[in-house]
């Protein structure tokens, strides 16, 4: 019996010819990631255990993104712990204010992660990099500390669900609608402990930004990782960007899957996840009676250049509805810069939106758009749990940038129809 794509990457990193579902292995890591919330805990554990150096200063990435530029004194202290640790261990991939971006937008953009990698990050959305054909998964701070010290992590080899994609997405839909549709059908624990392996003819028509968005939310179905095959779209993205040589792995033709789910991309419609779970999905067209107070376009799910472009195409020359706070957060400094250079920044301001420096900010209820009791936000983020963006009595609806921008203009939830 053959191995899935994930199993092949894990076997290679464990130095084994073969691994099987459920096997416990120790795998070598290509990149170990942490942010301003999880790194301080990892640093503490690292020191407490008596480690004094990291396994490789070029293989650790520390990105300050959740609460920077620092939202308060405590956040500033946390950033300081990260900064000092990165300084004293000469961490080459340390990203501070002015250079930072939201970690899962930044690492692929900067070529720090690549095809064939085995990556852990002390952030649940580390699963994003599966879009590049890597095994990448979220862990906690202790795993990060152990990974920084030893360059290894323990894993239970996962089984997989195969998603066979065919057809082409309608022009008012994007990767976000695909992943919301999937989570709506399999549920928030539908892929618990498993890999979500995306294959099929439909993959080719999905841009890198779509794939990154889809893998980003694999964790919202409980998955260990999401992964795409490496094709010319991937190689086009990695060439000239990737710091290390990409390594291409393919699933064996006789690999075993727990389930195979067929999805015709042409049947996808603009989809919204209603409070308070990402699985509570519904077509945007059925939610026209839901009025909103705020729209957020950004996050590691949808803060990329295509997301900004979708927002621009819908908002330019128009005005955000009265009473709506529309907050746009480009994912990295490079994306912010492109928004400025292409005139999108001005168009956003003219439409009545506000544009922030890159940050997680409101996505996790940190700052930059916190909700009061009874308020409702439509966001391109990935979680709509109770209290996620502020008061426990506030509500978050999740959607694509198309749907978010169209809804900002309307004042209520609506799909984008203008194509």
């Amino acid at each position, binding site marked *: 019996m053959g191995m899935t794509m994930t199993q092949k990457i894990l076997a290679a990193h464990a130095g084994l010819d073969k691994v099987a579902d459920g096997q416990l292995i120790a795998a070598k890591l290509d990149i170990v990631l942490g942010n301003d919330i999880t790194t301080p805990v990892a640093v*503490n554990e*690292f020191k407490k255990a008596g480690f004094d150096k990291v396994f490789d200063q070029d293989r650790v990435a520390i990105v300050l993104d959740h609460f920077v530029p620092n939202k308060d004194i405590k956040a500033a202290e946390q950033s300081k712990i990260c900064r000092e640790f990165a300084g004293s261990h000469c961490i080459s991939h340390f990203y501070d204010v002015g250079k930072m971006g939201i970690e899962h937008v930044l690492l692929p953009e900067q070529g720090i992660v690549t095809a064939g990698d085995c990556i852990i990050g*002390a952030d649940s959305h580390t699963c994003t990099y599966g879009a590049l054909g890597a095994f990448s998964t979220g862990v906690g701070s*202790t795993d990060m500390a152990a990974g920084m010290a030893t360059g290894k992590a323990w894993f239970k080899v996962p089984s997989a669900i195969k998603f066979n994609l065919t057809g082409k997405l309608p022009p008012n839909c994007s990767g976000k609608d695909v992943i919301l549709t999937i989570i709506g059908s399999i549920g928030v624990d539908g892929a618990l402990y498993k890999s979500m392996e995306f294959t099929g003819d439909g993959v080719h028509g999905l841009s890198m930004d779509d794939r990154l968005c889809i893998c980003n939310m694999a964790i919202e179905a409980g998955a260990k990782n999401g992964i795409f095959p490496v094709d010319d779209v991937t190689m086009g993205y990695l060439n000239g960007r990737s710091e290390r040589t990409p390594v291409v792995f393919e699933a064996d033709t006789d690999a075993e899957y727990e389930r195979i789910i067929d999805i015709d991309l042409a049947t996808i419609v603009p989809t919204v996840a209603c409070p308070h779970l990402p699985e509570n999905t519904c077509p945007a067209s059925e939610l026209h009676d839901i009025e909103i107070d705020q729209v957020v376009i950004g996050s590691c799910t949808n803060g990329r250049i295509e997301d900004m472009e979708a927002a621009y195409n819908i908002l330019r020359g128009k005005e955000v509805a009265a009473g709506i706070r529309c907050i746009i957060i480009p994912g990295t400094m490079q994306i912010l810069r492109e928004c400025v250079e292409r005139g999108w920044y001005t168009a956003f301001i003219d439409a009545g939106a506000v544009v922030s420096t890159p940050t997680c900010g409101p996505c*996790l209820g940190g700052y930059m758009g916190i909700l009061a009791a009874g308020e409702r936000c439509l966001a391109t983020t990935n*979680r709509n749990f109770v209290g996620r963006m502020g008061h426990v009595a506030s509500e978050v609806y999740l959607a694509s940038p198309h749907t978010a921008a169209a809804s900002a203009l309307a004042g209520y939830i609506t799909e984008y129809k203008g194509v």
Partner: protein
Amino acid sequence: MNTRGKVFKYPDNVDTDVIIPARFLNTPDAKELALHCMEDIDPEFVKKVQTGDVIVGGWNFGCGSSREHAPLVIKTCGIGCVIAKSFARIFYRNSINIGFPILECAEAAEEIDADDEVEVNFNTGVITNLTTGKTYKAQPFPPFIQNIIKSGGLLKSLRESENNG
């Protein structure tokens, strides 16, 4: 290794945002964070919890963010063990890595009620509901993981194996 105490019972899909809301995550201090444990789902929890008590959850306990702060605040509050029908995977590995025992047992999680008195033996995986007298057997951990919990966490076990090897 075991624990004995009263049960706090919660539904399916308890996420890390309600275990410890992100608005408090601007400090890594476990004791300070623990003051807000379960605040958004059960404001009474921190007032009532006593050392050795047990949390019983449903499916997918601990879903959401990778914050290790979640099992850490539960442990710091004095909870001796979490029993659930299933755990979200990062919460599961974080608990093991910090040496905090959690047990998967759907039957126990279904039948044990809030305020029941339970005793849990981690070595055998036996859960006894002292209120009803019924016992349950959870999946025991594989030896590799038992070792991590026994050592008090992943880093301690790594240190031990370095010293032994």
